[in-house]
């Protein structure tokens, strides 16, 4: 009897709540609107990529029609005669990015291993923070520093040293102005380092501790533990980190523009001035006279866009294969 009574009361109470809620109207409309709005925001990311691609193709169609694919095979860049070819810039971009990675990858991996596997716990956060600060310095400040500090050092000390001891390789002949391919690559290396090391750290962190313990239990030294237990398991992700660094190096503009020398010819030596895809845009875009000139520059931008999209997509897939989406942060 009493239980029945309380049940009835509960039912009435529930209906009162229900009535109250009905009075306030249904949340369905607001809910759907909100969900649609959020979906709109998310889809805008697709829209941005599509818009960039569309507008770059549209504005470079003059050059696309005029030169076709041969644009990427011709090596003369002569705005006066209206003859445009991107080979010197492609060459300069690839050479500087490759050299930068050559310098940056061993260092970045060394730092990542040190922070993750060797460093005393107390030092871990400060060192990680310092390497990330390196990423916070703007490109133009790197360029400024490079012009006034790195270039004189290259001209006076490092350049002559390299020429004296490694001149036989043939990589260092020609006059050494301080500015040029090698200087640009060094500053580029400093800039891509934090990108590579922070992703490499994420990837290494994703390797389960049991792997390390297993190798150590077999009597391995620490280096063997890192090599067999960590690096071997994380290698795909590390390759991803390196490719991500490559993407950054290909598109880096200001610092490179300030020290590479900006000369549209295929460099014959590491001291020679060169030109990259990004820096030719930065330098000549506002001075481009004539529609064909402008559209050729935009086509270079289009090429840069497509290449970095592909490079980044590959890198992200490789990193994802190791971390399964458990990265600590978006870089």
């Amino acid at each position, binding site marked *: 009897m009493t239980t029945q009574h309380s049940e009835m009361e509960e039912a009435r109470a529930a209906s009162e709540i229900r009535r109250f809620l009905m009075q306030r109207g249904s949340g369905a409309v607001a809910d759907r609107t909100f969900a649609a709005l959020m*979906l709109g925001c998310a889809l805008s*990311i697709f829209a941005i990529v599509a818009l960039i691609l569309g507008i770059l193709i549209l504005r470079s169609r003059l050059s696309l029609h005029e030169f076709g694919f041969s644009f990427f095979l011709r090596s003369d860049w002569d705005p006066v005669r209206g003859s445009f070819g991107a080979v010197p810039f492609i060459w300069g971009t690839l050479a500087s990015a490759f050299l930068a990675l050559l310098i940056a990858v061993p260092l970045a991996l060394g730092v990542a291993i040190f922070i993750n596997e060797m460093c005393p716990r107390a030092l871990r956060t400060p060192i990680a923070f310092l390497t990330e600060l*390196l990423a916070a310095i703007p490109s133009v400040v790197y360029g400024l520093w490079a012009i006034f500090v790195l270039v004189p050092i290259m001209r006076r000390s490092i350049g002559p040293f390299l020429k004296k001891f490694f001149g036989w390789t043939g990589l260092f002949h020609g006059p050494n102005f301080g500015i040029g391919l090698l200087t640009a690559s060094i500053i580029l290396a400093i800039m891509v380092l934090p990108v590579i090391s922070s992703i490499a750290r994420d990837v290494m962190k994703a390797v389960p501790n049991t792997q390390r313990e297993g190798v150590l239990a077999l009597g391995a030294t620490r280096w063997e533990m890192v090599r067999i237990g960590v690096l071997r398991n994380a290698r795909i992700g590390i390759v991803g980190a390196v490719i991500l660094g490559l993407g950054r190096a290909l598109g880096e503009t200001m610092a490179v523009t300030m020290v590479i020398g900006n000369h549209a010819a295929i460099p014959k030596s590491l001291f020679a001035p060169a030109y990259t895809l990004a820096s030719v845009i930065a330098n000549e875009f506002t001075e481009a006279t004539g529609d064909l000139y402008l559209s050729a520059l*935009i086509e270079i931008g289009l090429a840069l866009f497509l290449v970095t999209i592909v490079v980044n997509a590959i890198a992200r897939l490789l990193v994802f294969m190791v971390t399964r989406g458990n990265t600590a942060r978006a870089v």
Partner: protein
Amino acid sequence: MPLRPSRANVGRRQAANHLFTVLAILSTVLVIAPLFAILVYLLFQGVRSLNLAFFTHLPRPVGEPGGGMANSIVGSGIILGLASLLGIPVGIGAGIYLHEYGGGKTLANAIRFTADVLNGVPSIVMGIAAYSLIVVPQKHFSAFAAGVALAIMMVPTVTRTTEEMLATVPNAVREAALGLGIPKWRTVITVSLKTASPGIITGCMLAFARVAGETAPLLFTAFGNQFWPTSLNEPIAALPLQIFVYAVSPYDEWHRLAWAGALVLIVMIMVSVTLVRVVAGRGMLKGGH
């Protein structure tokens, strides 16, 4: 294979271990060295060149001593404010979709992937895109175009951090709110978003710091200006742009100003990044996995 370890073998392995330890420490030192080299030199040159005029005066023509970058500082503020206003809401919205609505759907994965890829697109390409989209139809450079270029660069960073921060909010909190009969949109805003807000603010500040120093997208959108900004529809001065112009100029006086500008810019960025670290370090709701 003998199971007994040979002495020579152990020695070689230990030597390799020591060598590797030394190399790892050496590379860490080599990486941190340029950071200090840059910061110390910048501090030295910048402090020497900074004065009150830098913050209050307009740039002077070549040959006239003095002058400052007051208009560039204001211009940068305007451009960055505009970029944040445009980019942050879209980024947060996309992040909310990815975590609260997308779940493991293919669409959400595709958006996440696109955001990551967009993050790696060079900033100069954003500059050309904004130029082609806004400057060409309008036929003049503008602060607005610069703001749009930087906003596009902010969106992916904000999106991904918002999503990651929402993932740290325990589902029990959401379920409790929904169980009280609160509609989902309201739950998302007042419960999920609010709980994750310190982390999301961190993400926004990081995105801000990242675009604050960008020069390449401003070259053909903001373009630069010798005078005070008066409207969003005209060329505008910006700090990184002015640093670039002065750095590549042949005049000592302008080099001095470039150093001062670089110091101001980097202090701005470092302060926001460090602030973010402090804020993010505390007050975050932990657990929930």
